[in-house]
């Protein structure tokens, strides 16, 4: 149970306070309701590039990081397809510095040309480091457009291509800021060694004067239901084959979400999971195998992924994955097995309360989805999932005509062959 207080400023900024006196630290987390899904298809990767630019100085404060480090604080941020989240951790005695810094960059950025130039390069290097210069690094750049044909989830947060990053102009940066970085499009959570009354005063002082801006109304193309089996095979200089089967599933807020998540746990959470026991240990078909969901706000993905062991064909590997899915479609999960994944979810939630930052991020995310208090009712929703509900979801999802299969084949180079022999 994570307790909190909540209020909204006149300009629409939602503020949540979580008092936790067991720590001398405070966290200030701001979530902006904008992600890669809000990008123009011709300017992908922009939400993430923009996140970098948020550290390039604001209208009254030329350098964001140094004043924070000077008061013993640390910060970071991340961008997903759905949201952009910024967070600061610092000694609670210096909390006002966080308000000063965050409110100024919500007010306006410096829009420095040098910062844009440098961060373009930094993001291009990030693109290379994480997606292009790693074995299997480009999988998501290929899998997303296979699963999505209309919805902007068809590109990854880093963007479709480096070219889109190279082409970003300062005018685009300004327009993006105006459209998305408004108080009414943000949720702020302050947690730790703080008092709600003090936070109210600080929020009014620093964020109160920021103009509300224009309301952004999201109108994204809806991904039509998939009606045909999709496949793609790619060959790359990697040492092992890799098999991905992705299924479209409902979004995060749909009532089926908790059953589907537990279904992925049954398949692949921990060493007692079905995929590990059956396919890695008993049948020795895979060296590693996973099932997971993307937890997207709009229509998501349920992904099965595994690297077959040497000598096992990708056809055999695919068939083995499907067999596990067929089992879920045909037979209800035994009560003990379902209890097991529920227990794991319950203890994970207790463990997550050990981290102040995790609590703050969760409150912000649930508030953005509609109500921070729902975070405290999640456990009950998992506990309510029945074997019948899981079977129903398995039958709904695991159809060939709802599947996108990506076969990633190893092109053996001399270098790799040398390493094996």
């Amino acid at each position, binding site marked *: 149970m994570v307790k909190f207080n909540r209020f909204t400023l006149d300009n629409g900024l939602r503020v949540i306070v979580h008092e936790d006196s067991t720590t001398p630290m405070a966290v200030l987390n701001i979530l902006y309701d904008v992600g890669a899904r809000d990008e123009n298809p011709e300017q992908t990767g922009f939400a993430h590039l923009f996140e970098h630019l948020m550290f390039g100085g604001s*209208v009254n404060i030329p350098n964001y990081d140094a004043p924070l480090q000077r008061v013993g604080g640390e910060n970071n941020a991340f961008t997903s397809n759905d949201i952009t989240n910024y967070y600061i951790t610092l000694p609670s005695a210096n909390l006002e510095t966080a308000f000063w810094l965050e409110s100024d960059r919500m007010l306006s950025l410096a829009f420095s040309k040098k910062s844009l130039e440098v961060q373009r390069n930094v993001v291009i290097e990030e693109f290379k480091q994480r997606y292009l210069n790693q074995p299997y690094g480009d999988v998501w750049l290929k899998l997303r457009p296979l699963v999505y044909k209309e919805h902007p989830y068809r590109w990854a947060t880093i963007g479709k291509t480096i070219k889109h990053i190279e082409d970003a102009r300062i005018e685009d940066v300004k327009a993006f800021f105006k459209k998305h970085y408004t108080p009414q499009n943000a949720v702020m959570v302050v947690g730790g060694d703080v008092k709600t009354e003090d936070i109210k005063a600080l929020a009014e002082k620093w964020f109160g004067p920021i103009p509300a801006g224009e309301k952004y109304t999201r109108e994204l193309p809806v991904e039509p239901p998939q009606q045909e089996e999709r496949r793609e095979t790619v060959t790359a200089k990697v*040492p092992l084959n890799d098999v991905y089967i992705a299924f479209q599933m409902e979004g995060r807020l749909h009532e089926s979400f908790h059953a589907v998540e537990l279904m992925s746990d049954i398949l692949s959470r921990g*060493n007692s999971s079905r995929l590990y026991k059956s396919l890695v240990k008993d049948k020795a078909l895979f060296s590693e195998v996973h099932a997971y969901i993307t937890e997207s706000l709009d229509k998501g993905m349920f992904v099965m992924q595994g690297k077959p062991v040497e000598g096992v064909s990708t056809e055999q590997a695919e068939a083995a994955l499907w067999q596990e899915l067929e089992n879920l479609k045909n037979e209800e999960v035994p009560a003990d097995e379902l209890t*097991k994944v529920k227990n794991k979810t319950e*203890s994970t939630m207790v463990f997550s309360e050990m981290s102040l930052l995790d609590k703050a991020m969760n409150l912000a995310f649930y508030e953005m989805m509609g109500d921070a208090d729902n975070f405290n009712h999640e456990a009950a929703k998992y506990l309510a999932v029945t074997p019948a509900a899981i079977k129903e979801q398995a039958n709904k999802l695991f159809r060939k005509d709802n599947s996108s299969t990506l076969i990633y084949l190893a092109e053996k180079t001399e270098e790799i062959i040398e*390493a*094996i022999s």
Partner: protein
Amino acid sequence: MSVLNRKQAPQFNGVENITLIRPEHKKLANGCNVYAFNSGDQELVRIEWIFGNLRFNPEKPLLNVAANTMLTDGTTNMNAAQIADTIDFYGAFLQVDYSYDYSQVTLYTLTKHLASTLPVIKDIITNSVFPKKELETFVRNQQQKLQVSLQKNDFVARRLFNKALNGETIYGLAAEPEDFKSLEREDLLAHFKQMYQPANCTMVIAGKVDEHALDLLSETFENGWDNQAAPADTMQPPLAPSAERFFYTEKPAALQSAIRIGTPFINRTHPDFPAVQVLNTVLGGYFGSRLMANIREDKGYTYGIGSGMTSFKQTGSFFIASEVGADVCRSAVSEIEKEVNRMKTELIPEEELSLVRNFMLGSLLGSLENVFSHADKFKNLYFAGLDYDYYERYASTVKNITAEDLQALANKYWDFENFYKVIVGKY
């Protein structure tokens, strides 16, 4: 109402009191040392069983890591599936972790399930059997994982660097896929027997642990777990650093090059260690560091660059690491050299130094998030043979060290010419 001056930073306070929780100590009759931190609001506990690794055998280099990883693969009483089923059913988490000096087993569990999960741990550290079939699976899967890792430039650079600094020792181990073939079940059993004995074990408990829980722990691990006739031999042979200082592995198709530059170094036990931590922070130890400011934020050569120090029982290292655009690799190396040398020739300006002081103290305070973090701080001290006055000395050094002291330290410890330099990619 006064007008808000957004150009003016708010007043701030220095970090004054940092209080570390100290553990209760108890020695079991069989010689196992137990340290317990009873604190926290959540009804959960983390327990670690930490064992010193056995002396490295170059003929059988993977015994330490394999014995540790395979602890969950079966005992005389339970097979791998039963172990996993029991742990998962109680919503607990069981991890095995290998590092250069120690191997450990970690259990995270809700306190209410302690009585059901502890017997599993007892069983795996006393009765592991390393079944033949599980060993085959382990070998096959580890070989595959290693093949993938060997395609990552930063992984290859790290291995080359460690091998250059430490030679054929536990610290320099750079296994090839075929090395896994040398693993034999009999060797694992003998290794297990010698290493996983109570006198070579330290238990660290953190979370809600009342008298009852502690009694249960003592009872479980005091009875039926005895030492062997011969104690565990955890002494390591001397290091054998390479005479060659420059290592370049060309990857013609690389978009980025991994760089790792550094040298064997003092570790935590040395009196200068807190001071060189300040030096390291200025150079590359935080987001606003000189390496980040120059090579990422000014030049845009990389997504990230940093420097760090490792501290082990027998050695330590100082290193700078990055992945940079392949076309700017030489420029990046020369900028790194410039930044290292600038620390030797110029005094750090007071403004920068005071920022780093505050950042490091805030960071220390922030690193004490929960009872687990207090236990982690204790482990840093305990395994280096240090006492709690280390952190007092650390805080006082961070607050008081002068720019002159730091310049002198840079000259004492850093010689870029003599650093080991590893490049994987294009140069």
